[in-house]
């Protein structure tokens, strides 16, 4: 709405808001004495844990951008220089089998996508399995078959691996870790820190399918809906986009924490504002309905085959066309823009016509009581 007049908050309220912004910018401090489930949810608690423990311990310039994949300069024996992308991801999903996929294709696609959104061509994967004593071999065969098919579809090979078995009760059936390397073409340097005011923000399709599928597949809710995980390899979609649009600044796959978390990472890393329009964000009715019933916001729900793209505003239509040209991007949409203000904040224009903040969640979205 362009004909709105901005009324400043009252002086004292503004002072409080400024003070909060200063507090938010301070280095996060890990206060808990033990790990809680919130530390694994991808929200503020996860960010704090990573910065306070892992970044603190391993700090180096390759790690510091905290992108989905690290960009590593390598030099071949004959002296030629190249850049490879390296990433790793662990999969602990429960249930192991769900509509639209299983932990196996998830483990391949997740790592393939982390490479793809770095702009790399995924090439080789490792696979590590932690298996619980008593786990059915038939299930493991099925999982490995899915991994094989997913790898073939993504054009990658699983070239090394590891297997460990733990006593019954020490794990939940099967956990998988995958790592992947990919080749980065010269000149490709994507990163959320490069977003600048005027850029457009796109998503490649309806959001929240995977997370809602998993919540329903756990069978705790007694809700049934015709919804499937969106797990899919995004490398082809990304290659199409990068080939057609020179002004792509950043790509992220919207996994844990959902699209809202990505938008916040853009706003913080680039020190810009992000404004999205609720109406423009594609969400399937089944997903919206389930989310409404549970009192959670699809913006925070995980996807496994969707990316968020930041592109030069002048090339937004081009980018949309490039995404829509691929079956995985058929329902892509421009959902918002990068703004100069308010710094570090994501705001949404609601369908209702109001405005609100979209902040990082602390942990998993908690269902509301009533």
């Amino acid at each position, binding site marked *: *709405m362009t004909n709105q007049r901005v009324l400043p908050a009252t002086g004292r309220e503004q002072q409080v808001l400024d003070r909060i912004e200063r507090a938010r910018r301070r280095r996060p401090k890990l206060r808990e004495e033990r790990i809680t489930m919130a530390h694994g949810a991808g929200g503020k608690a996860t960010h704090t844990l990573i910065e306070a423990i892992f970044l603190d311990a391993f700090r180096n310039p390759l790690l510091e951008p905290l992108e989905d994949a690290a960009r590593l300069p390598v030099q071949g024996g004959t002296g030629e220089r190249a850049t490879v992308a390296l990433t790793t991801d662990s999969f602990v999903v429960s249930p192991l089998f769900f509509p639209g996929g299983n932990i196996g294709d998830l483990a391949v696609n997740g790592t393939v996508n982390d490479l793809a959104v770095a702009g790399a061509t995924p090439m080789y994967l490792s696979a590590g399995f932690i298996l619980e004593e008593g786990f059915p071999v038939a299930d493991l065969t099925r999982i490995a078959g899915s991994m094989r098919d997913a790898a073939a579809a993504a054009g990658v090979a699983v070239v090394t691996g590891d297997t460990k078995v733990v006593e019954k009760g020490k794990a939940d059936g099967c956990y998988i870790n995958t790592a992947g390397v990919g080749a980065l073409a010269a000149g490709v340097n994507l990163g959320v820190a490069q977003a600048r005011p005027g850029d457009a923000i796109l998503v490649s399709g309806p959001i929240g399918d995977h997370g809602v599928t998993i919540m329903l597949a756990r069978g705790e809710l007694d809700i049934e809906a015709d919804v499937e995980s969106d797990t899919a390899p995004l490398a082809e979609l990304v290659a199409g986009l990068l080939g057609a649009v020179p002004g792509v600044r950043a790509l992220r796959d919207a996994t844990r924490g959902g699209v809202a978390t990505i938008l916040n990472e853009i706003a913080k890393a680039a020190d810009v504002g992000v404004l999205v329009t609720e109406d423009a964000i594609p969400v399937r*009715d089944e997903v919206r309905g389930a989310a409404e019933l549970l009192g959670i916001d699809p913006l925070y729900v995980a996807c496994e085959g969707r990316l968020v793209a930041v592109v030069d505003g002048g090339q937004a239509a081009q980018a949309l066309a490039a995404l829509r040209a691929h079956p995985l991007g058929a329902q892509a949409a421009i959902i918002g823009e990068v703004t100069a203000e308010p710094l570090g904040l994501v705001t949404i224009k*609601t369908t209702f016509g109001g405005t609100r903040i979209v*902040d990082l969640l602390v942990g998993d979205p908690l269902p*509301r009581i009533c």
Partner: protein
Amino acid sequence: MRFVDEFRDAEKAHALAARIAALCEPGRHYKLMEVCGGHTHTIYKHGLEDYLPESITLVHGPGCPVCVIPMGRVDDAISLASQPDVIMTSFGDMMRVPGSNGAFFDANARGTNIKMVYSPLDSLKIAKANPDKRVVFMAIGFETTAPSTAMTVLRARAQGITNFAVFCNHVTIIPAIKAILDSPDLRLDGFIGPGHVSTVIGCRPYEFIARSYGKPVVVAGFEPLDILQSIYMLMLQLSEGRSEVENQYSRVVPWDGNPVALKAIGETMELRPYFEWRGLGFISHSALKMREAYADFDAELLFEVPGVRVADPKACQCGEVLKGVLKPWECKVFGTACTPETPIGTCMVSPEGACAAYYNYGRLNRQRVPEAISIELSRP
């Protein structure tokens, strides 16, 4: 999507905003309290205040079920969950409410087994699946959730489930509203009445507010247009000098409530002589406990419960926020010491809590719609 989109229609909202603005008397300020935390959540989530003129202030009331749970009861629950072979079940938003030594999530990290459930009935499934464990449901909420607790107890008895109990913390809404009306430091012009509670208790219990205190009440639904329409109905009453109880949410709320649900509560629970509310202190006859006939399901009788009263942290001004005396941002620790990551007070925990709603959604310069500012522009 049906039943959602029609209640979020921006065009209708603009029309209502114009009507609301037209009812504002120049120079008069209006304070309306939305009693229910669900309303607070809707107001912030949809940016509803953008549609209101500056002369209308929404005051966030005490109807957030987790926000009114005192720290001592959280400690009691964790102590219960720490006893051998206990599985505790709880609603999701209770998991992060801080006690004096952390919240349920922290207790789980130390070894308790507190599981999130979506319905108290899920506790019975867990009890049946774990016959060697004792399952205790952390029952919280107003008359909205009390019937489902009651039904769970009735079903447990009918099915002969003996390893299930309820740690009852249900509260009742009317005494809380009365406490607010009697509080000397608060001036309110009207109430947006709680919708979900009213599906159970109906609209009659609010009549004393209109009659004895002369304040209009409009029972409201939870979609943004519901709330905007309720504000319009309140403003209309105020402009006509009426104070009545009206039902905006008639598609769900029967005037006389739900007799079956009320009967289930009455069968299994009775009023406590008094109960402590976070920030509001002790309020007499404001909470429920299990009846003696259901003592075999009463966790407070079956288990050792310390029952130690824990004073609210000194810096915390949840009470003033719950009474609507302070806006969330006016609290001394808001947004600095008290944030959703490190909540000091319960108002910062639940998405329905006024502070969490304001922190997560509302920290913005408001951009009012033209209809809402026209009145200010037209004034000299």
